[in-house]
């Protein structure tokens, strides 16, 4: 018997024919594919048990993460505030020192001027001494 492929694709066309031997071989090939597939299809399968996270665990983790993130953010914020505070205090201190220094310098100037008024302005030059004596006598009289 000679087989091939016909109009419906089942047997014989255009001289491309298979003989009985090939038909038998192809039948065996199909039988082997069927048997293998059937065995593989119905083999027991090992299913890996994947532990799914419950929503409670997930919520716990989420909450934990929020708390940790909050603490870190809060800590950093506080640290920044402290730094800012120290910087402000230092600036205030520097300003106070500057003001104090200016005040000190002003009072020193005033003292100097006063000293000039009392000591220098009342000191009579030598050339004017006779007049100064006359004034003193007039004052006595």
């Amino acid at each position, binding site marked *: 018997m000679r087989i091939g492929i016909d109009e419906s694709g*089942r047997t014989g066309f255009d001289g491309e024919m298979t003989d009985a031997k*090939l038909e038998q071989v192809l039948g065996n090939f199909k039988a082997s594919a069927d048997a*293998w*597939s059937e065995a*593989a*299809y119905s083999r027991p399968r090992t299913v890996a048990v994947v532990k799914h996270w419950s929503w409670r665990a997930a919520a716990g983790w989420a909450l934990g993460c929020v708390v940790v993130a909050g603490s870190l953010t809060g800590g950093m914020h506080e640290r920044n505030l402290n730094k800012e505070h120290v910087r402000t205090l230092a600036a205030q201190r520097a300003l106070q020192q500057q003001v104090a220094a200016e005040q000190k310098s002003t009072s020193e100037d005033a003292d100097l001027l006063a000293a000039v008024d009392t000591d220098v302005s009342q000191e009579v030059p030598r050339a004017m001494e006779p007049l100064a004596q006359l004034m003193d006598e007039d004052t006595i009289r």
Partner: protein
Amino acid sequence: MMAAGTAVKPMSAEAAEDLSAQEFVRVVEAHRPQIFRFLLSSTRDVDLAETLTQECFLKAHRNWAGFRGESTAMTWLMRIAINLQKDHWRNRRMQFWRHTRTNSVDLDEASDWLPSGERSVEQQLLAKEQVKRVWKAVEDLSERQRTIFLLRYVEEQDLGEIAQATGLSEGTVKAHLSRALHKVRAEVGGWR
């Protein structure tokens, strides 16, 4: 036939969805072994065949609403399986596996599955060797020729069904099948 005046209650969207889901389950149950067999004989890799079968039905499920019944469900599923298989081989990473064939079973193992029937030991050995030769020839076929050959001689589909599943004309299918058969015959005949 419905009696005149009988009120027809329109099917709710949920009921239609349920019906569609049930129908899909039936299609899966009916055709899963066949799709698996085709993918197994194409890849000679049980794990890969299982993965591709899963993907095939997943894809079918996603597109189930779009299935218009222009071809049989089997042909539609086979078309998806063929495309998945094609994509798989085209994948660069998988090209490596195709060349090394580390995951697929060797030809001896594939031909071990031949049922003994009522054959003598000698006949069994001969048949096993011949089947091994066919597997070897199938391995050496081009991707398209292999698909067509397997659809014809393992899935026993006719030319029209193969043409629909592969998206080729019947003439092209015939030509590819002829070449594939020629190579198989040469492989088996060369050994005899």
